[in-house]
C-alpha cells in the first residue's frame, strides 16, 4: 500500500508517474466564455488525455505519448456540466472526467436545490430557479459516449459518513450499478467527498474494490486498485 506522505508523492512524480488535472465544480452558462478561454489556454501547452492511455501507462510503465497532457474534471453531476462544460470540451476535442453524485441525479427536481445545500454542492444564483440543476441519467449516458463518467458516491459522502452495510451499498456499489446500467459501460473509478485516499480504511477500500471499480481518485493520487 502506498504511504500517504510527501515523499511517496515526490517519488512517483519523479518517475513520471503523474497526470495533470484541472478540477471544476459548477460551470454556469454565464461562465461559459471564461471556461472556453481557460481550456483553450491549457490546450496551448498540454494535449488532451484519454483514459485508455492511463490504463496503458499502468500496464507498461510508460506513457505512449510523452507530450504534456491534462484532464479537466467536472465534479458533482451538475446539469451545467452536461449542457455547458461538455459541449465546450467536445468542440475543443478534450476528454473530460465527470464524477457524479448519483443521489443528486435521482433527487426530485423540486428538492434538488435543498439537496445541494444539504450535501456540500455549491450553487450560484442563476441555478436557483426551481428547474433541474442535476444531470439526468440520459445526459450521463450521452456523456459516457465521449467522456469518462464515474460515481462520486450517491450522497456526496465521505468515508466517515459510511458505516453500515446499507450505507456501503447505497454509496459505493449501487451508484456503479445504476451508472453502468445507464451507460452500458463499466464506470472505471470512484471518488469520495473530500477525495480521501486509498489506505485510510481497509473496510472502505475493500468495498470500493468489491464494487468493481478499477481506480480510486483522491485529492493527490490516482490509485490503481484492480
Amino acid at each position, binding site marked *: 500500500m502506498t504511504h500517504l506522505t510527501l515523499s511517496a508523492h515526490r517519488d512517483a*512524480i519523479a518517475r513520471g*508517474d503523474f497526470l495533470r488535472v484541472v*478540477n471544476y465544480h459548477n460551470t454556469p452558462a454565464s461562465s461559459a466564455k471564461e471556461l472556453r478561454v481557460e481550456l483553450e489556454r491549457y490546450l496551448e501547452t498540454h494535449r488532451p488525455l484519454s483514459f485508455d492511455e492511463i490504463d496503458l501507462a499502468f500496464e507498461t510503465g510508460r506513457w505512449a505519448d510523452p507530450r504534456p497532457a491534462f484532464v479537466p474534471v467536472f465534479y458533482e453531476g451538475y446539469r451545467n456540466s452536461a449542457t455547458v462544460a461538455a459541449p465546450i470540451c467536445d468542440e475543443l476535442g478534450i476528454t473530460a472526467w465527470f464524477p457524479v453524485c448519483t443521489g443528486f441525479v435521482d433527487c426530485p427536481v423540486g428538492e434538488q436545490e435543498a439537496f445541494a445545500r444539504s450535501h456540500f454542492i455549491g450553487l450560484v444564483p442563476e441555478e436557483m430557479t426551481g428547474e433541474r440543476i442535476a444531470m439526468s441519467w440520459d445526459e450521463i449516458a450521452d456523456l459516457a459516449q465521449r467522456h469518462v463518467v464515474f460515481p462520486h458516491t450517491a450522497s456526496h459522502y465521505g468515508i466517515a459518513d459510511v458505516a453500515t452495510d446499507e450505507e456501503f451499498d447505497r454509496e459505493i456499489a449501487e451508484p456503479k450499478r445504476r451508472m453502468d446500467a445507464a451507460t452500458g459501460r463499466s464506470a472505471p473509478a470512484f471518488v469520495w467527498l473530500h477525495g480521501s485516499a486509498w489506505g485510510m480504511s481497509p473496510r472502505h477500500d475493500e468495498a470500493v474494490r468489491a464494487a468493481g471499480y478499477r481506480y480510486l481518485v483522491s485529492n493527490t493520487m490516482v490509485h490503481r486498485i484492480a
Partner: protein
Amino acid sequence: MTEPRPHPAVTLETLRRAQDRAFNKEGIPMILALVDERSGATRPPAPTSGEGAGLADRMGVAKTALLPTARDDDMGGVISVLQAVSFTDFGDHGDDDGGAT
C-alpha cells in the same frame, strides 16, 4: 502546442492564488501521482522522467518555502505543496486576479 513559460518560485502568494479560486469560473490545477495498489503488481522500471524529476525537485523547494516544519505525512501540507507547484507548473496563465470575483 507552445512551450510552457519558465516556472516562478513558490511563495505564500502562490498558494493563495492556487487555492482561492472562483469555483464557478476557474478550475483548480492539480498534479496527481499515479500509484498501483494491486497486490503483487509489478511494473517495468520506468526511466526517470526529466519533467517529473523537475517537478519533484520543485515540490521539495515548495515544501521548504511554505511548510518547513510540516511532517512528511501531513496530508494537508501535501495537498498545499501540490496545489502550489501545480499552479506554477501549468495553471498560472498570467492574468489571474487571485480569485476575486
